[in-house]
């Protein structure tokens, strides 16, 4: 019961909604936050995909006017930024949010309100970034010696005002002189806001993993997905500060006249590249490791064998994360860095291939001699293995430094990173969506539609991205509005493939929407799985575990269902079925009242202050801009004050009665 004093400490009445939109805005439940991340990321995936389709329609002709140069440049930039920061990262966050506590036997993350804050900052950051299109206008570069470029009036379009420069915004092209207007500022500040969200998540997940594991779950008994999440959190922790600094420097150069990257003032444009890639390379491991974790969970379940070489996979993952900080300049081989630096980074890059190979071989070893069920999660997992291997091999060819001088900035690179990020990360993520859908919805996704989706994607994906390798070697550069007519045939194949991918996604969406309401009921443990999250009912009860289990080894849940015979083959225990059934009943009906953190709107309010500050900085020369900065700061600070004086739990919230 709240005392008068405690109530006095909160300014407004504490919300306690259980349903409706307010329950989502004030939630601190990690599962709901994960779901919000997932749906938001999925919508951005559709947007980023539409951007890609526009690009591919344009590129199906060598000298197309479907898009103006400015529109084309803006779209490929936005497509990249969207897919990296607004799709793959938050999708990873969605899985980590939903699954972390479930897999380690906890009821929530260490800081539930901070968790909500992360989500709202992410959402506001993404919306802020995209809102730039409303406020930015097209402007020709101001150029050198005060002489500016010129625009044909027919080239001035709204879409042309999107920021251009690629997702890495090389300086000085993305500086005030060469990208006047506000488009780049929206991108830079938007990314800054998004970075804060990820940093907060990283702190949250690290503390959760270190402090909230169930009894007996020692670190080397954690599922691989948890390990990969831990490595990702540390990668975020150490790489985000660097990009934050870099983005501040760009923003200050553009807004306040600093000279960090201005060559005419003595600044160094290459410094931007170093700073960006010091973040950017760990970032790509941040993108792939969650999918590697997901695949490491799916393969054992659908091969009915434990993960081959668990310790090797874990240490290889950690090794990849660690080594990932030492290879950044392999994105800069042609930039004029010294031969010694190039050789060093080339060799460091080759080194990363070793732990990556170790993981791939161990995944193969998991499948080998297994009893393989080719359900959709498994299809996507195997698809991941196949596509990621190709991407990894092309990556090794990049480490042949002089050859990279031919490959870099061509479609060969575009092919490489789409193989690892789409064929790898996205395939893995979708495998996870099929696999964990029952946990979230209590129903199963349709298997036949899932297989159709997979094959459409497998065919479409390879049609789209395989030709890019030879297009690159035939001289098709990146970020090119026009290309040589001799390359038109294969560009058309690529474009057709892109539409096949789109078709596959439509199938998936249809499957998802239909199965949410009408899919077959999943019941308990539909996949006969191995890890703790399957030992509780589907859909997951709000309190997660009625009783937190004690863990005695890896794959705890599996070992409660199965013993082993003399040959080491699993034998289902006699009471396994009744045990699982009992878990289902108890899971929905906890014996003791469970207190859960109360909902709160302070995270939402605090997050809302940030885009206001962002708008204020962009328009800071006007009175409105200055006012917006003040309002934003005030809003965030007061929300922070309210939050700091509000207790995590008040009264009862959560399952008190039997359901």
């Amino acid at each position: 019961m709240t005392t008068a004093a405690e109530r006095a400490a909160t300014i407004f009445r504490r919300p306690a909604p259980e349903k409706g939109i307010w329950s989502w805005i004030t939630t601190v439940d990690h599962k709901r936050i994960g779901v919000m991340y997932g749906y938001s990321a999925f919508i951005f995936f559709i947007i980023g995909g539409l951007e890609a389709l526009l690009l591919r329609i344009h590129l199906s002709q060598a000298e197309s006017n479907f898009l103006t140069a400015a529109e084309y440049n803006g779209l490929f930039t936005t497509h990249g930024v969207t897919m990296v920061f607004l799709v793959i990262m938050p999708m990873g966050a969605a899985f980590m949010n939903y699954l972390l506590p479930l897999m380690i036997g906890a009821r929530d993350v260490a800081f539930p309100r901070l968790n909500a804050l992360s989500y709202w900052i992410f959402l506001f950051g993404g919306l802020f970034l995209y809102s730039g299109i409303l406020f930015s206008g097209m402007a020709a570069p101001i150029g050198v010696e005060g002489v500016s470029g010129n625009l044909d009036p027919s080239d001035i379009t709204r879409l042309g005002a999107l920021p251009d420069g690629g997702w890495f915004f090389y300086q000085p092209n993305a500086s005030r002189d060469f990208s006047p207007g506000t488009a780049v500022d929206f991108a830079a500040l938007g990314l800054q806001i998004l970075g804060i969200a990820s940093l907060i998540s990283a702190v949250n997940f690290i503390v959760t993993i270190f402090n909230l594991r169930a009894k007996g779950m020692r670190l080397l008994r954690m599922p691989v997905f948890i390990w990969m999440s831990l490595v990702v959190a540390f990668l975020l922790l150490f790489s985000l500060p660097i990009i934050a600094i870099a983005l501040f420097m760009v923003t200050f150069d553009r807004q306040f006249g600093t000279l960090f990257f201005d060559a005419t003032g003595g600044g160094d444009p290459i410094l931007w590249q170093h700073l960006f890639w010091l973040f950017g390379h760990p970032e790509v491991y941040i993108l792939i490791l969650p999918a590697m974790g997901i695949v490491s969970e799916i393969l054992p379940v659908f091969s009915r064998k434990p993960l081959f070489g668990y310790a090797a996979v874990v240490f290889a993952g950690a090794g990849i994360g660690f080594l990932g900080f030492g290879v950044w300049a392999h994105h800069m081989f042609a930039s004029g860095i010294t031969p010694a630096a190039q050789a060093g980074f080339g060799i460091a890059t080759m080194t990363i291939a070793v732990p990556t190979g170790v993981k791939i071989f161990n995944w193969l070893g998991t499948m080998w001699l297994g009893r393989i069920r080719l359900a959709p999660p498994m299809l996507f997992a195997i698809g991941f293995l196949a596509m990621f291997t190709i991407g990894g091999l092309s990556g090794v060819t990049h480490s042949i430094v002089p050859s990279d001088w031919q490959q870099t900035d061509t479609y060969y690179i575009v092919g490489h990173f789409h193989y690892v990020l789409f064929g790898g990360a996205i395939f893995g993520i979708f495998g996870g969506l099929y696999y964990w859908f029952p946990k979230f919805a209590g129903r199963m996704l349709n298997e036949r539609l899932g297989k159709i989706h997979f094959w459409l994607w497998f065919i479409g994906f390879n049609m789209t991205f395989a030709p890019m390798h030879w297009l690159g070697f035939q001289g098709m550069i990146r970020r090119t509005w026009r290309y040589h007519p001799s390359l038109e045939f294969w560009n058309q194949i690529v474009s057709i493939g892109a539409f096949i991918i789109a078709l596959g996604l439509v199938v998936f969406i249809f499957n998802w929407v239909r199965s949410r309401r009408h899919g077959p009921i999943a019941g308990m443990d539909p996949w006969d799985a191995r890890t703790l999250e399957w030992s509780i009912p589907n859909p997951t009860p709000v309190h997660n575990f009625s009783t937190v289990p004690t863990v005695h080894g890896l794959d705890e849940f599996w070992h409660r269902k199965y013993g082993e015979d003399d040959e080491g083959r699993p034998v289902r225990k006699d009471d396994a079925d009744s045990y699982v059934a009992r878990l289902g009943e108890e899971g929905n009906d906890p014996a003791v009242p469970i207190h859960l953190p109360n909902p709160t709107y302070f995270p939402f309010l605090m997050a809302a202050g940030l885009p206001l500050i962002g708008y204020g900085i962009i328009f800071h020369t006007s009175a409105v801009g200055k006012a917006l900065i003040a309002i934003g700061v005030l809003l965030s600070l007061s929300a922070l004050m309210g939050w700091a004086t509000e207790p995590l739990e008040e009264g009862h919230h959560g399952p008190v009665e039997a359901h």
Partner: protein
Amino acid sequence: MSESTAPPEDEEVAHHDEHESTGVENRKLGMWVFLSSEFLFFGALITNYLLYFGREFEQGPTPSEIYDIPFTSVSSFVLLMSSLTMVLAHNALTRRDQGATRTWLLATAMLGSVFLAGQVFEFTEFIVEYDMTLSTNPAASSFYVLTGFHGTHVAIGVIMLLSLFGLSKRLGGLSERQHLNLELVGLYWHFVDIIWIVIFTVVYLLTATSGG
């Protein structure tokens, strides 16, 4: 097979024997983790400054030519002393001496503010006397952004200290739960101080070319 446990409280250590844990309370561990990230934040800024420090520029002066080392030494000392008063505040709270806690909290905040005033004075000198602004050259840009961010961190720390002070004043003292909060603010404050020691040593002392 399994035991019944209450949900893990993020600010209580009472149940930590019920699950695998580092033994460090959640919020304290969280602060340490966050501060490790901040080390890289300032590391990048300091590296930036060092990269531009040795170069020649058309427009001067560079910060290293115009440092007033004696003055900055004094303000560094002030900040160092504020770490001492912070320790004393924590000490006082451990002894349950709420009055002393408030005194030392206020002292820390005031010393921090004096440091900030010193920074403002120094910047004003540089701009007005020597005409060194953000846009003079990249070394100047790096210097201002680095020390500016540090100053912002100090200012946030002062706000947190004053909040604790105000809370203690209003509620007649800090509760057991607020103990941890004071410790967290202390950790943050010491971190900010350590960063300043690094900045003062590397950025001021090691690169100063003028006599002071």
